[in-house]
């Protein structure tokens, strides 16, 4: 119970008026950057960094982490209300969150999202508190073959979910891989598929694609149908909030599974985005209401949100304990740590326990505060939705393009968002699934790098993915199992009898 007494000391540090005020400011700023696509948590944190130079490190990290929580929450709000993911990790929340909002259940969706996010975050902090030493050791076991196996597992959990044409899903995913390879190849240092455009050297940003595919694509669809957001009423009715909270226990399985996935992906640097996709995929696969996913299924909101936040929280641990950032935002914070004069690494826990445990304690408090504050901002968004669509529609367009530009300050990105918008619109109408493309863009180059690093280690032998360690073999087996799960489940259904299957298809 050493960790527990440390944690209590941490609370004593974090629980001051100044720190609580910092948390509130951080969370509110975070919600703001989270809501604006393009201006994500990494931007927000690097922006606040100069402010922290003169602060005490504990206060500084509290401000920065609170901003991170706020941004994670804010990202879900726009995903649900406008189908525009404010953060890359809230892409998966749009799959069911937006349909729920369209059906008039915006309050329910938002409350579920925030509550499950809060649950995921709490789960993450508890894991950090209890297992900090062990987790650090575990994270050290990961090398390139293990990373590749984790990425493969993510793909495997997501593949074969779509109900449409398999070949359309393949085209979508492979295009995502192709877009991910544009730019510098980390292994050889060559510039791939840039065709001489110097603006393509940095690659095609996944966020630009998401803004186009989701934001603009959805707007085009809305325009074509002549709909004007009529279905969405985001007025917070207290009754709806309580109803949503009351329904939380019925999602216990999803919550637990997604929290575990989140922790896993946060510790092994798969990241929150991959975690949310994987968790969504598995929730759908194991659900008895498979066919409702994508049409406004509450569990489809719970799963990605829980995993996103538990991954975001857990990513803080490898950052502090190993100096490996589990997410882009953690990378920025790590830079901050060094500027404040701290060395992230195993010794940080011993040299500066006040800092480490103050941070962990502030994660408990910060997340509770974030849930409360983010719920309080929902009426504001409801007000935005009451503005006539002929004003708010073009406003969203403006926000989308500002977002596309701010990602890397590139003019080309403005022009890239347009074709992605058309692609999103056409794909959706023709039944091409978009999610595989997004997932491939997020993980494609990482998976390729890990694969090629492994090949260098093994001198070209694929056996490394089985015999490098017990760990890699386990993950690979899991991935294979998931890959062939549709077949397995079919056999199980056969065994159970045909009439059950008939009921589903009817």
């Amino acid at each position: 119970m050493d960790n527990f007494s440390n944690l209590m000391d941490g609370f004593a540090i974090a629980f001051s008026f100044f720190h609580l005020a910092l948390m509130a400011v951080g969370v509110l700023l975070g919600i703001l950057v989270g809501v604006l696509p393009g201006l994500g948590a990494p931007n927000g944190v690097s922006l606040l960094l100069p402010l922290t130079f003169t602060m005490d490190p504990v206060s500084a990290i509290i401000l920065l982490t609170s901003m991170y929580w706020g941004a994670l929450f804010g990202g879900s709000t726009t995903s649900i209300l406008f189908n525009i993911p404010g953060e890359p990790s809230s892409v998966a929340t749009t799959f069911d969150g937006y349909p729920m909002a369209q059906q008039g259940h915006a309050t329910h969706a938002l409350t579920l999202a925030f509550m499950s996010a809060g649950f995921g975050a709490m789960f993450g902090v508890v894991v950090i508190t209890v297992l900090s030493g062990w987790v650090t050791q575990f994270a050290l076991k990961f090398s390139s073959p293990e990373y590749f196996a984790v990425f493969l597992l993510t793909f495997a959990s997501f593949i074969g979910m779509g109900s449409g044409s398999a070949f359309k899903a393949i085209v979508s995913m492979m295009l995502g891989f192709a877009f991910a390879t544009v730019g510098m190849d980390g292994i050889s240092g060559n510039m791939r598929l840039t065709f001489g455009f110097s603006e393509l050297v940095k690659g095609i940003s996944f966020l630009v694609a998401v803004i186009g595919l989701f934001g603009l694509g959805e707007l085009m669809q809305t325009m074509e149908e002549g709909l004007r957001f009529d279905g969405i009423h985001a007025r917070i009715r207290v009754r709806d909030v309580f109803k949503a909270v009351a329904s939380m226990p019925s999602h216990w399985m999803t919550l637990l599974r997604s929290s575990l996935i989140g922790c896993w992906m946060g510790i092994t640097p798969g990241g929150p985005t991959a975690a949310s996709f994987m968790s969504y995929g598995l929730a759908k696969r194991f659900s008895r209401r498979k066919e409702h996913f994508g049409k406004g299924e509450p569990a489809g909101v719970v799963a990605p949100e829980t995993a996103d936040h538990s991954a975001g929280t857990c990513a803080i641990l490898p950052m502090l304990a190993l100096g490996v950032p589990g997410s882009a935002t953690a990378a920025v914070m790590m830079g901050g740590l060094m500027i404040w004069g701290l060395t992230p690494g195993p010794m940080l826990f011993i040299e500066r326990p006040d800092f480490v445990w103050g941070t962990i304690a502030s994660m408990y408090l910060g997340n509770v505060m974030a849930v409360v504050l983010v719920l309080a901002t929902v009426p504001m968004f409801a007000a935005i939705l009451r503005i006539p669509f002929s004003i708010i529609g073009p406003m969203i367009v403006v926000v989308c393009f500002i977002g596309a530009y701010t990602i890397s300050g590139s003019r080309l990105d403005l022009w890239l968002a347009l074709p992605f918008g058309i692609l999103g619109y056409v794909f959706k109408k023709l039944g091409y699934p978009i999610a595989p493309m997004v997932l491939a863009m997020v993980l494609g180059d990482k998976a390729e790098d890990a694969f090629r690093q492994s090949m260098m280690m093994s001198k070209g032998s694929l056996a490394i993915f089985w015999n490098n360690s017990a760990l890699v073999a386990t993950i690979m087996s899991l991935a294979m199992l998931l890959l062939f799960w549709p077949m397995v489940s079919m056999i199980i259904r056969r065994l159970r009898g045909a009439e059950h299957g008939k009921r589903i298809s009817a």
Partner: protein
Amino acid sequence: MFKTKLIATMLASAFCAAGASAAWTPDKPVEFIVTSGAGGGTDIFTRTIQSIIVKNKLMDAPIVVVNKGGGAGSEGYVYGSAEQNNPYRVTFGTNNEYLLPLVAKMGYASEGFTPVAAMALDEFLIWVNSNSPHKDAKSFIEAAKKGDGLRMGGSQSKDTDQTLVSIISEATGAKFTYIPFKSGGEAAIQLAGAHIDSNVNNPNENIGQWKANMVRPLCVFSPKRMAAGPKVTKDMSWSDIPTCKESGVPIETYQMPRTIWLPAGVSPEVVTFYSNVMAKVQQTPDWKAYIEKTSQTGTFMAGDELRKYITQDTARAYSVFKREGWLAK
């Protein structure tokens, strides 16, 4: 008569020069372009300078730091040199400014920049896992000569790390399988987990693991030992690490300058302004603390001295790139 006239002209020209150099000051926000991702070595370098300038009010205009680390930093260099006479874009990097365009088509030319200053030299060391049987550089090199050689991790491909590994191989006949990771930090963790045999990280990239006795330094590629500073582990400080030359690796020095650039089209007064600011930065206690904490060598180079350094550094890397066949067609 002639003499006084001469003095008068000299005074006049001196006055003019002084007047001109004082003439240019930025009157709108200056962009500091970081050619690495957030949290990278160049990022910390830039933000430290930013914080010192802000704290000591060395410049009136506000500073906006932008990270453009795509394509191994080339994104930042493309952006930084896009407007050839824009004095409000200051680009921060390393020697990759003049090395990147040698190995791939980058979308910018190294001549598109004029050097402002080099503020520090980052050191390179050979590191092994603390359970490794190799206690000194000599036995390590001997082991790398046998069989398939050893696994060496590093940051990026055809960048400073891989160049150094190639130089070591050439000088000693040791064989390495170089595995490029995204950053030095990743290479540090891979070494701590014993997934690779060694890396050639900068001090700051491995200090956390060294402190925890997970990795061990063998030697430093520096002409003389590093500054002592406080003890890092129980019984060692930086100055206890032998230089590679004294441990029998025939490489005198390999260092990476931390550099600051302006677009080539700006007037000399602009360059003078920024190099003066940097010269002041370099004298603050905060800067000295940064140098000590990151275990770099503090130096300040500007003007012709810096140009000469760049020419030499380029020539050395060029010969390595040529031998390895990395040069861009």
